[in-house]
């Protein structure tokens, strides 16, 4: 039984309420290694039966005759209508950009309309790729949606619905917003789903992030030997296999796995590298586009049992290159919609319910960059497109009119010509 379980059992054995154990000292940061290391196991401590004497969640003194009884109110709390209703006006505009995404008629996530042309951002991992996607709009209409592109680092999917004329969100930068900034999330039906605050200022890991290959390697004959390839990583996508020997990286010969690790430590996500491999005795060159270390190495969040209490968590909930951490309580299926501040502006798109105490949103700065990357026209481009369409329509009408006039003129000319010939023929 590993350490986490022992700690929890020790507490649970005498305490009914899942206590907050003084966390064991957090594990030292994983050596940034592509070399062998024990994969962090997902902490899933089996719950222990509790002694009846253990104090229930009300606390040890709750039921003694000390004249103090627990008083509470169902009307208190930030998830009650009394509080949420205060944000109805705040989210009203953003609510019109909020859609419900369904796969085979089953709601799976929310989405945010990001262009006049019906481009929608949503949470990629909540979509069941094969199924038929639809978006239910604020006005109640349901439109088929096509999956256009995804970005794995942010777990974002771009959908396109066949409707036009939307007002995209009023974006606001999230960079300088302090912890405590109020935020609300509209649902798909003019409701205020949740209210909370930014728990931390925007965290941007992109500066310190580095490239990630996704292998476990040891020392091999003349280089680094691939022991295993992690699924879904750059290594697996490029076809690297166990037993491959990596001899060189970008023409630089590597002596052993330590050299490989050192080279990778200085790389960047999305960087292209050329690997010189020996596979089954044959020399091969393999190009690899590196992934993000922050995103993929940190894939398994070290969630304690306490972190998992209080509601379902998104399966994909960790490691985004930049993220706003807030305390709005959202279900995984309520992610994908906009996050709104008191001035009605949208500072991000909610992307994951990560633990009991935290929900992540992609900041608007990153959303803008994603729009560029995935081919969504910017507002000015949209304006240009609409203008060009208007011009085309005007000219088409003019052309139609001109062609009709030309046709009439030709007719008149032929008639006149025929008449003249008649006269000359006499």
């Amino acid at each position, binding site marked *: 039984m590993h350490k986490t379980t022992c700690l929890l059992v020790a507490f649970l054995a005498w305490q009914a309420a899942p206590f907050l154990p003084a966390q064991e000292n*957090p594990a030292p940061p994983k050596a940034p290694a592509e070399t062998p290391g024990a994969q962090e196991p997902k902490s899933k401590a089996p*719950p222990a039966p509790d002694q009846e004497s253990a104090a229930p969640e009300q606390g040890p003194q709750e039921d003694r005759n000390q004249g*103090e009884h627990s008083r509470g109110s169902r009307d208190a709390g930030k998830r009650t209508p009394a509080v949420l209703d205060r944000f109805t006006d705040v989210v009203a505009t953003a609510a019109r950009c909020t859609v419900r995404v369904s796969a085979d008629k089953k709601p799976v996530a929310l989405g945010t309309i990001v262009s006049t042309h019906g481009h929608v951002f949503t949470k990629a991992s909540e979509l069941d790729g094969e199924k038929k996607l639809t978006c239910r709009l604020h006005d109640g209409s349901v439109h088929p949606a096509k999956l256009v592109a995804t970005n794995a680092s942010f777990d974002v999917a771009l959908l396109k619905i066949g409707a036009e004329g939307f007002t995209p969100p*009023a974006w606001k930068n999230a960079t300088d917003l302090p912890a405590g900034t109020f935020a609300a999330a509209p649902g798909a039906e003019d409701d205020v789903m949740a209210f909370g605050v930014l728990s931390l200022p925007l965290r941007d890991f992109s500066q310190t992030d580095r490239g990630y290959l996704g292998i476990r390697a040891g020392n091999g004959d003349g280089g680094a030997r691939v022991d295993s390839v992690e699924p879904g990583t750059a290594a697996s996508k490029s076809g690297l296999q166990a037993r491959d020997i990596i001899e060189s990286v970008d023409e630089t010969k590597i002596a052993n796995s330590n050299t490989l690790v050192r080279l990778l430590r200085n790389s960047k996500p999305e960087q292209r590298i050329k690997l010189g491999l020996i596979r089954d005795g044959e020399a091969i060159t393999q190009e690899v586009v590196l992934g993000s270390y922050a995103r993929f190495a940190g894939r398994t969040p070290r969630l*304690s049992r306490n972190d998992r209490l209080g509601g379902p968590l998104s399966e994909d909930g960790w490691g985004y290159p930049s993220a706003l951490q807030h305390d709005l309580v959202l279900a995984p299926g309520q992610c994908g919609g906009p996050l709104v501040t008191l001035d009605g502006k949208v500072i991000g798109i909610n992307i994951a319910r990560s633990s009991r105490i935290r929900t992540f949103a992609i900041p608007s700065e990153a959303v803008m*960059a994603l729009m560029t990357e995935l081919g969504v026209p910017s507002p000015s481009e949209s304006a240009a497109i609409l203008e060009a369409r208007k011009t085309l329509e005007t000219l088409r009408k003019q052309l139609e009119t001109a062609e009709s006039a030309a046709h009439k003129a030709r007719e008149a000319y032929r008639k006149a010509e025929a008449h003249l010939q008649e006269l000359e023929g006499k």
Partner: protein
Amino acid sequence: MNLTHYFKASGHPRNRAAAGLAVAALLSASMPVSADGKIDDLQQLEARLIQTAERVRPAVVGIGGGSGVVVSEDGLVLTAGHVVPKAGRDITVRFLDGRTAKARSLGADLGRDCGMVRIEEPGEWPHVEISDAKPEIGQWVFGLGHPSGFQIKRGSPLRFGQVLRLGSYLVSDCAITAGDSGGPLFDMDGKVIGIHSSISNSITRNNHVPIKPFRDGWDRMLASETWGSRRAASRAVMGIMVDRQDESKGVRIGRIMPDSPSKTAGLEDGDLIVRFDGKNTDNYEAFYKLLSGKNPGDEVEVVVQRDGKEITAKLELAKRR
């Protein structure tokens, strides 16, 4: 923010940001304000939260795998009893500005989950005030701490909510988790009104120790006395281990202890207690409440469900060992 390397090179310099701002400026003409000025209240509350949290945050320290809060300039620290269950231990207190200080655990009331620590290094430590005012249900409060352990680069995440219940615990909907133990719950003046202690499955069940038990045990804790126990909660026992994970309507016996009243009365592992002393026990809390009112030696009738049948047993409750 340099995110370009997360995206394939697109090759088009697009003046996206400027255009976005232009559109935003147009759309922001309509700032939502409701007739009774509610938005102003929210803006004031927000400003107060931001400023107060920033002011008090430096006093929120890491103690081992938990948290604490400094309440005097010379370094008296309040924390949870279970963070420092043994007095007289040398510990290190960590501050968010990178400083660490040698400290010593003082006493603890383990029954109420109060604990104290004293920083031994001389200095003018960032600290906060304690509120002795009676908290009110519905009052706005905020929590700080070090969930999942002290992480200096991350800082201390802020959680905002309201007081939901008062009693032996102050219960709020500021979500807390492992690592937050011992950290402070603040009122909107930035005074400590609670110390994080425990949670339950519900997201709105976050238990904070109120200030009163700290005040009651203050001198004893300062004198490094440790007393109390969470076990001491119920005096009379049936001799069972309860399976809290079972979701049936009733109380599921996980295991019967040998030589116990339950064993003597013929109860078995897996029995579902549905009535205790003539009253329904739909859940553990209801059962526990009834049990706590009993004394060793009391005779009670217990009704359990076993294999679809209801069985009544008479027990003589025993003394906790």
